[in-house]
């Protein structure tokens, strides 16, 4: 369902008023991050669609596009499985952030320093 009078693809990505803040010293890093996160999101979307297909195929052995468009989880277990997948997926993609937090919590020696230590062991 599309309305030709509205250029919804362009308008959807409009900027909000106010100069955009950049948090990293190099804005190029942030640009890459934003593109990467958009791709991450689209992979999640594709994965959810595949999940739907698999479940429908399993259920009926045959699948129509209409069925895919209207599928929504029909049990609390499936809802939970799907949201759990998102949670795991996000954690995987943002691994480095978690690792930096762990490092912050428990500062480590560099492997070069450990090599020196081991050399004396």
């Amino acid at each position, binding site marked *: 369902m599309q309305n030709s009078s509205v250029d*919804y693809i362009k*308008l959807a*990505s409009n900027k*909000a008023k106010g100069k955009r803040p950049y948090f990293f010293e190099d804005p190029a890093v942030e640009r890459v991050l934003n593109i990467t996160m958009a791709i991450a*999101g689209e992979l*999640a979307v594709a994965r959810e669609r595949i999940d739907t297909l698999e479940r429908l195929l399993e259920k009926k052995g045959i699948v129509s596009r209409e069925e895919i468009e209207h599928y929504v989880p029909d049990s609390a277990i499936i809802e939970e499985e799907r949201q*759990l997948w*998102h*949670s795991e997926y996000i954690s995987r993609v943002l691994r480095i952030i978690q690792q*930096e937090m762990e490092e912050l919590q428990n500062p480590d020696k560099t492997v070069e320093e450990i090599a020196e230590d081991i050399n004396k062991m």
Partner: protein
Amino acid sequence: MAAKNLPPVWNKMAKHAMLPETTHDERARYNFLASLNKHLAHVSQGNQMAFDKRVEPDFKKDHGRGFTTREEVKEAMKKDPHYQAWSALRRCTMEMRQQAGRSLVLRQAEDLKEKAESLNKGKKTLILDKECQPPPYLLAVDNHLMPGSYHTEVIEGDVSAAANYDSGVFVTTAGLLGKFNDGGGKAISHWMKTTHSEFKPKRILDIGCGMGHNVLPIAMAYPEAEIIAIDTGAPMLRYGHARAMDLGIKNVTFMQVEASQTPFEDESFDWIQTTMFLHETGGKSIYKIMEEIYRMLKPGGITLHIEQPQYTDEMSLFEQFIRDWDAYYNSEPFWSKMHDIMPDELMTKSGFNKEDFMQIGVKAINDLDDGKTKADEPEDHGRSPVWNVFGAWKH
């Protein structure tokens, strides 16, 4: 260990005639973004760690003293790599949420407009005023990074801004406001019904009603009352009225009126409510609006305002700083300034008696809560559906 808390899937949202149609992928995109928001609340814990372990110690070393203002904390934290990464991801998530919502509502803008027109046609409970302009504080910024804010019309008779808001607030709050996004309105009407069961308001005003999600629970709790809900955004009012019609709630009149200059008579309302509205006003307007509220309120009437917690001396500078994030980077600039205004002073300057001032805490009533024990979660500052409510009876 309790089970991991997962946000509800988007299709748990209550269906009504105005809710935009969604494809499978559009729902999946919202599910991803709700999960991402939830994940980032955990990543935010690293900000406190970075502050405690390096930002504050480094500042003390350099300055020979600790932080004295939240602005100093902000300047120092801006250089911290963890804070930079979390901020960049959070900003990106907010922008993605707007893009996801706009892409799905704008493609069906004409259909949504027609749906609203058919539900609104011939009804006296929707009163629009072409002369009513959005106030300057709304024109200065697109609140919460919503391009075009509440008032922009992409086509004549547009409702897309409201459809975007309605479908997406569920994502930003990870469903914690319930399936109608009305946890705030439910909480305040429940509080009134249980704490002041003797109070029988005949006429209630909701200011800055938006798409009316928080005024409808009040209208349902007081079906005999006449409710007037005002806003300056025509798309919000058209959508909100159509939504209320479809939900069978008939005692609310949606009017396009600016809050600081209303056409209502002196002492003509028993209850005047705002919900998450005042922090989207301005430094002078907030006082004008409160004076207007005082004027319109009947003696014996009450006014209540649901807001995020104020910044007090008891709140750590770090917490003030982290609560400020949304103000600057999710574009709600008055949020920070307003939290320095003491609500009791705001009320007394507008005419209320100091002894009539009241302040309570309320939590959203969430009809999606399954009652299961949840794992402990870090507070997502500025996003938690736990609010400070202040107000006063007028005597």
